[in-house]
């Protein structure tokens, strides 16, 4: 006897009907697990990464564009930094220690940086890679930890530093940092 093309169909009266309580319990479990999965996706997407604040991006854009010109640099700092911070630079005809320190952090890489990339951004801190005119990365990387004013328009405090790899096993490590 050939069964080709035939489709067995169980009559409705022979189907074992699941109980309502079973369906309700399974429905609750399925709903709970689905909500948990959605929550997991949300957490994995949000993590700690944040978009860098506009004031930080503008500040860096203009600092890089100042291209070591002290007058431009001072203008940028006064524009974006809270007076409590910018006054610490002690502007005068003679470059202050603070001015030299700040300038050294960003410009003293052997070559002048003309652009940058924000390699990582967290709430309150960004990691930067600077690039020269040929588009080559100028290591070491930089980090800027910041606090903004309540309106988010001014930098009220910060730490700006080079991230120097201390292991020679690090691909970015080199003996001479310029």
């Amino acid at each position, binding site marked *: 006897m050939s069964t080709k093309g035939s489709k067995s169909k169980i009559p409705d009266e022979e189907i074992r009907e699941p109980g309502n309580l079973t369906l309700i319990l399974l429905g609750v479990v399925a709903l709970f697990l689905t909500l948990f999965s959605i929550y997991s996706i949300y957490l994995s997407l949000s993590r*700690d990464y944040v978009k860098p604040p506009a004031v930080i991006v503008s500040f860096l854009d203009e600092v890089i564009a100042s291209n070591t010109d002290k007058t431009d640099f001072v203008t940028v700092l006064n524009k974006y930094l809270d007076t409590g911070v910018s006054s610490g630079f002690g502007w005068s005809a003679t470059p202050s220690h603070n001015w030299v320190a700040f300038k050294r952090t960003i410009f003293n890489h052997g070559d002048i940086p003309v652009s940058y990339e924000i390699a990582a951004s967290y709430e309150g801190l960004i990691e930067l890679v600077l690039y020269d005119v040929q588009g080559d990365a100028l290591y070491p990387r930089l980090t800027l930890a910041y606090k903004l004013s309540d309106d988010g328009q001014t*930098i009220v*405090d910060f730490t700006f*530093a080079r991230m120097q790899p201390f292991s020679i096993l690090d691909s970015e490590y080199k003996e001479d940092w310029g």
Partner: protein
Amino acid sequence: MTARGKQRLLWVLVFIIVFNVVFGFFATRNLGVSRNVGCQVVKLMYEFDDPLYLGPNYARLKEILSDSMWDKLNIDNDQRVVNSYYKFLNESSSVDFVFVRDGFIVYRLHNDNIAEGTLWVFCYDIVDGKVDNIREYKLVSVYRGVEGGF
């Protein structure tokens, strides 16, 4: 609802449950562990009474690190030891976390031979539940505004 409809609903619900259990297993592997495990790695590496007796710490690290990171960072790697542990000069050390985010940790080391204010950075990724792509930095040419911004 007919018996056939209820049976179909049953199979749909079973499928949803199985799918979510499998998906949830993979989705949650890297959740919740990242920040804690980063701090844990830093403490296991740099918090000790005597750097000559780091064996138990590194036995634990082997379970946390990916195989490639373990090859690079284990204490049998002389280059790694010189770079990371020479600065302690056989004195005890403790860690003080300054800034902790998933994948990016800033910390201070309390050791008689390391300047108290020096900041160190530990960057990492979590891959398949293991700590991978570790990058370690010392912050130099540090310029602080008022108190630092951390």
